[in-house]
């Protein structure tokens, strides 16, 4: 018995000693950071991860899109979220949680792009063509992400290498909008050069880089370059989808109009349908079309018929995204927008007949009669107004409206807000932890 007790003690002591190894535990479903992006497979996985960031419910999967319509004149807040209510009323406080969420979601995406750009060049065993393609896609995504930031917040901290220490996060400061745009253009040009392969439509391609460059040049007022890039895209052979509704297919099937789209599936879903649809259709009716949007559609306009159900703002619902499940893909940039960019660049450069001819493709697809220059539209301003209208009708519920109004200089008039409100506030939570980041004036 005495031996038993001794054995008991020895066993316990042994156990305690052996168990110190048990203190080295690792999560079985996550990779230690230093092992990430160290192999060709890892580089591919991290690239998928970079696209995954676009699916966030605060980004293309939801808030980012909704707030562009809500803070513009397309959408009305009809739900229960107070942060959405403030967007609808143009009454942002600096601590609006959704404004914070959008900021964080886009920077989350940028972090992933930066890690790829930093680590992929050092990955051994990656064929150079594939390495360049991955890097090109990462540059494209970073350009896209920064453009989405600068549209809403103005000049933002320009983070182009991964942040590895919290101190480095705390000392971030804002760059000017011009500097951010310089970086965007540089990234997109880099992307255009590096990419070569025929990627699927849910990855960036040379065409996507050109199309996004065209968009960015238009935002900068560089109409000649916008036109040039738009023409390069046109030359690649895209065409409009036969039916407008094909673009918003419940399962996200491809159309000839796709240039770059963000994949959503039943598991990696978008909130678009759920938030826009009425409660009777299984949505939560968090937002609905404004009366001005409803009235802007000609009754014959196939887009209005697809995009809106009902005639009274408040009870009408947005139906562009047909299901609450949310497996519809999101057109990050589609050929119709490239045509509208081309038309606008042409119009601004005074080439009115070509401009009208270009946007007429859009009108015809929508079941409307083409405009005739000199009859329906005559002056340059009328042409530009017509293009703005087509943009609104074509891209409604796709999160384009607010930035577009600001770009075209109509926002103050259309929205009836003071000029400072044309930028979102920098999230207060960000300023709290990085005091070098200064707030936008007025907030």
């Amino acid at each position, binding site marked *: 018995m005495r031996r038993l007790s001794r054995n*008991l003690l020895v*066993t316990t002591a042994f156990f305690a000693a052996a168990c110190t190894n048990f203190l080295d535990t690792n999560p079985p479903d996550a990779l230690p950071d230093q092992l990430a992006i160290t192999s060709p497979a890892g580089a591919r996985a991290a690239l998928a991860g970079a696209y995954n960031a676009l699916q966030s419910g605060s980004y293309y999967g939801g808030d980012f899109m909704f707030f562009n319509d809500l803070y513009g004149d397309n959408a009305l807040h009809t739900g229960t979220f107070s942060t959405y209510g403030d967007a609808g009323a143009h009454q942002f406080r600096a601590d609006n949680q959704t404004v914070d969420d959008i900021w964080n979601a886009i920077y989350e995406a940028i972090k992933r792009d930066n890690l790829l750009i930093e680590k992929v060049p050092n990955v051994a065993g990656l064929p150079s063509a594939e390495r360049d393609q991955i890097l090109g896609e990462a540059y494209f995504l970073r350009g896209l992400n920064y453009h989405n930031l600068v549209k809403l917040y103005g000049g933002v901290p320009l983070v182009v290498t991964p942040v590895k220490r*919290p101190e480095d996060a705390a000392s971030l400061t804002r760059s000017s909008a011009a500097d951010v745009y310089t970086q965007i253009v540089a990234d997109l040009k880099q992307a255009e050069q590096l990419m070569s392969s025929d990627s699927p439509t849910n990855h960036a391609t040379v065409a996507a880089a050109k199309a996004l460059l065209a968009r960015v040049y238009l935002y900068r007022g560089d109409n000649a370059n916008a036109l040039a890039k738009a023409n390069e895209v046109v030359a690649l052979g895209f065409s409009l989808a036969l039916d407008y509704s094909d673009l918003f297919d419940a399962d996200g099937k491809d159309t000839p109009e796709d240039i770059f789209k963000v994949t959503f*599936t039943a598991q990696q879903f978008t909130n678009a349908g759920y938030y826009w649809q009425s409660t009777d259709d299984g949505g939560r009716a968090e937002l609905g079309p404004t009366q001005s949007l409803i009235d802007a559609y000609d009754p014959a306009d196939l887009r209005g018929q697809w995009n809106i159900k009902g005639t009274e703002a408040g009870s009408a619902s947005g139906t562009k995204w047909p299901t609450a499940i949310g497996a519809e893909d999101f057109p990050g940039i589609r050929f119709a927008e490239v045509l509208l960019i081309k038309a606008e660049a042409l119009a601004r450069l005074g080439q009115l007949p070509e401009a009208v001819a270009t946007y007429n493709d859009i009108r015809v697809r929508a079941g409307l009669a083409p405009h005739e220059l000199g009859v329906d539209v005559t002056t340059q301003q009328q042409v530009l107004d017509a293009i703005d209208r087509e943009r609104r009708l074509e891209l409604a519920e796709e999160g384009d409206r607010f930035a577009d109004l600001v770009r075209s200089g109509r926002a103050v008039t259309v929205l009836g807000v003071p000029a400072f409100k044309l930028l979102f506030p920098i*999230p207060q939570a960000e300023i709290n932890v990085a005091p070098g980041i200064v707030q936008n004036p007025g907030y």
Partner: protein
Amino acid sequence: MKLRNWSSMPATGALVLLAFGSPASAAAQATIQGTITDSARSRAIAGAQVSVVGTGARTQSMPDGRYRLTGVAPGSRTIRVQAIGFSPVTRDVTVPATGEITVDFVLSNRTVQLEEVVVVGYGTQTRENLSTAVSSVSAPDIETLAHASVDVALQGKAPGVQVTQNAGNPGNAVTIRVRGAASLTANSQPLYVVDGVPMVSEDISQLDLGGQGVRGITGLSPDEIESIDVLKDAAAAAIYGSRGSNGVILITTKQGRSGKPVVTFSTYAGVQSASKQLSLLNATQYLAFFDEAAENDGYGARYMEDQLGFTDAVNTDWQKAIFRRAPIGNAELAVSGGTESIRYRVSGNYFGQEGTVIGSDYRRLGGRVNLDFKASNKLTFSSKLAVSGEANHRVEGDNSLTGVVGNAIANQPMIPIRLSDGSFASTADGLQYANSVAIADLNDTRARNGTILGSLEARWLATPNLTATGRVGVDLYTVRETQYESPGIIGTYAASVNGVAKRAYSLGNKYVFDGFLNWGRAWGGRHNLQVTGGSSVELNRTESNFVRGETLSDPSLHEVSNATTVTDFAGTRAENNLVSVFGRANYGLADKYLFGFAIRTDGSSSFGPDNRYGVFPGGSVAWVMSREPFFAGLKGVDLFKLRASAGLTGNQAIGNYPYQSSACTANYGTEAGYASCTLGNPSLHWERTRQIDVGFDLELFQSRVTLSADWYNKRTNDLLVSRPIAGASGYISYNANVGNIVNKGIEFAITTSNFRSNHGFNWTTSLNMAFNRNRVTKLFDDQPFSAGFRLANRVEVGQPLGAFQMYRFLGVDPATGDAIYDDINKDGEITGADRTIVGSPWPDFNGGLTSTMAWKGLDLTAFFNFSKGNKIFNGMRLFSAANGYYYDNQFSDVLGRWQKPGDVTDVPRASFDGTSGAREVSSRFIEDGSYFRLQELTLGYQLPGSLARSLGFANARVFFRGHNLFTVTNYSGYSPEVNSNGSTANISLGTDFYAYPLARIVSFGFQVGW
């Protein structure tokens, strides 16, 4: 004769205590027998220790209260009886040379039980020799519970332990805070230890139903619990080191007693009802109110009727439709007995209750086998095995658009529950939210929990002074959840996809291996030393699977297998391990000067290699001043003991791998992907709580008055915080040790025997109160932040944790009817900057009051609990007092709204567009949560022995009992005891958001023994 002789110290419970001293006298002729009963409740006391002072003769009483001491040497002897929860009694008797004498004892109940055995972790101590702060609750206070969670027994009974029933749904978890809250991000619930084995006490369930939690503690039946001890100060909790910061709850289960098999059966059955109905508008009032709201904002008259087509032809009382009278019942059958070498207690129990809200119910079936086996004079084994299954049928609550209670309050009164064709009315018929009755009827949410809690312990009495104990313990806990969302509820997501089914499986397993030595020695007549030392290894394993499917073929098919599309899935595991060495020494000098020291070193896998080990020491001293010669002249003072302690404890409950940088799954379509998800912090380490405690125990007039009081100061440094960092880095938070919280306070318990006699009328009252003050004293860069529902809770230096921050409501402008808010920064506008601290969810004080009267077998116990000064954020009023902005039905106080210029009221005008300001989050929705509640009232009758025997029982008791019979409060919601954010909501306590109300229960029961 108070414990001068250490040999009279009993070895009870699961944990061994050294007994040393002279062995039993061999010369034995006489027998002493009798019964032991409880003066307050006239009930038999089982398990009382009966000993003949100065000899080794001892025994325990049977469940029917009888004891039998054989082999007592003749002569003048002192018999001593002590039992947990009662004052000990000694009586001098003359023992004849041979034969049998009968000596009955009546023990009286006490709150401060100085000679009670207290479980302190890896051993026991007597209350008298304790120099630390430990509160205890014993079986009589536990078996009266009508709640699935046994820790509710601490409510109002253990000073400094704040117990909050988050909501009244059956089987719900509760929030427990020992001496305030000491953490921001890390778990603030105490550590639970059952028979020496820490249990899985965190909520591992996966379906989030607002504040409704699922925790393993509900797998224990109150019937099987002997006592609950709470280690409150750092010197006591230091033996549990890195997990002691939030207090330690030690639960001890009932043991077998040797003797003939004794069978006991106890049961009760009762009826529950919702304790309150809220006053809401009826259909006529509703339409008039919203007409006015519309008209005020320029929508024209009779908007509801003329524009929307509503009439008041139907008037639905939605609350009445969802509340019901519901049965509750409990039964336990136990057999206990044994021989010299083997003792057993085998029990089976059932507890069931239907919810007072339709569609909810809870059942638990459990069994326990506790065995003690004496292999030799030196080697004993104890095994404990409990198995239980719980079936919890739940309804969504709180923060959900399909909460049954929430929607019953919000649903409009002019809409019927069902249409004329019998189908449920829906949003298509004008309801603003899903039909609450339809949700309860058609949706189905269940949690099925399985608990296997077992341990095997071997004790080797190596020498008379040294015992070695080895113990293996397991807690195998599983939670299986299902949820079905019916397409029959028009207007929900599930309807648009033809049904949603979910299935979740969660497993939390804990394996504990302990080895420790207890050594004790008394010498020189003055010195007593007890030393405990050992080591422990604890392995924690969690696993989880989850799958969610949509689009089911038929309304009667509810499983994920019936779905066409899987829309969400998960499956993983995690581990967390702890390796520890601990020790404790208690030294008593002349029974007057007591010194204690405890230390534990923990190594935890939660932290990086450089910060893995932590040392947690605690020390205490006590001076039993009443034993000093200068005290001898003070008549009436039985005991006066001063105590002081200081120590350091920790907290590590911030997840399994908080220090690591890792890349997590981030798939894109069909491409497998990952992305960096955490920014690691290799220097992350334990939260450290330094606590000092000064207290005293006082016993007067032969235990007629006992008083115990403590002052403490508890300072938590290096808070484990997921602190925010600039999102532009791509990370939004970073785990770090930043910030301090201080909790300080006073707590006391006083028990008085107002009337005391052996056979006549007895009346005892106990009062305990705790005054805790909680302050955040340091944060990262002292940056305040907000949390909780609508970010109402603030964490700010100088304020209580989670103080409410919002606009201060000043009243209603008599000219316009608009709400006026305090323009704190005087800039002429009400903006975010005008939000200010408007109250704290923490009480000024809380406690309990128990009164027990007994007379000739009758007993009457009234137990009140109370809380004063805590504020509640009544989040329901954001909608139900938004005065027209939402179509939710409104609380009837809107009838006193402003209607025309000159009206003086504090209810803003009705406004369709919300332009009255009524919907702003403001102090208008902060209410006083003080309350005084009759938590329990019991009238019991112990049948006289002869009557019981003629009925075929050894003893029998019948009782009527009521729970939650009345509450005095100004709070306008269902119950001022509420926490919609759940037990893990450290910094967002005190919010009521459509919480399931607490039930009022009236029951009848009986206990019989054979």
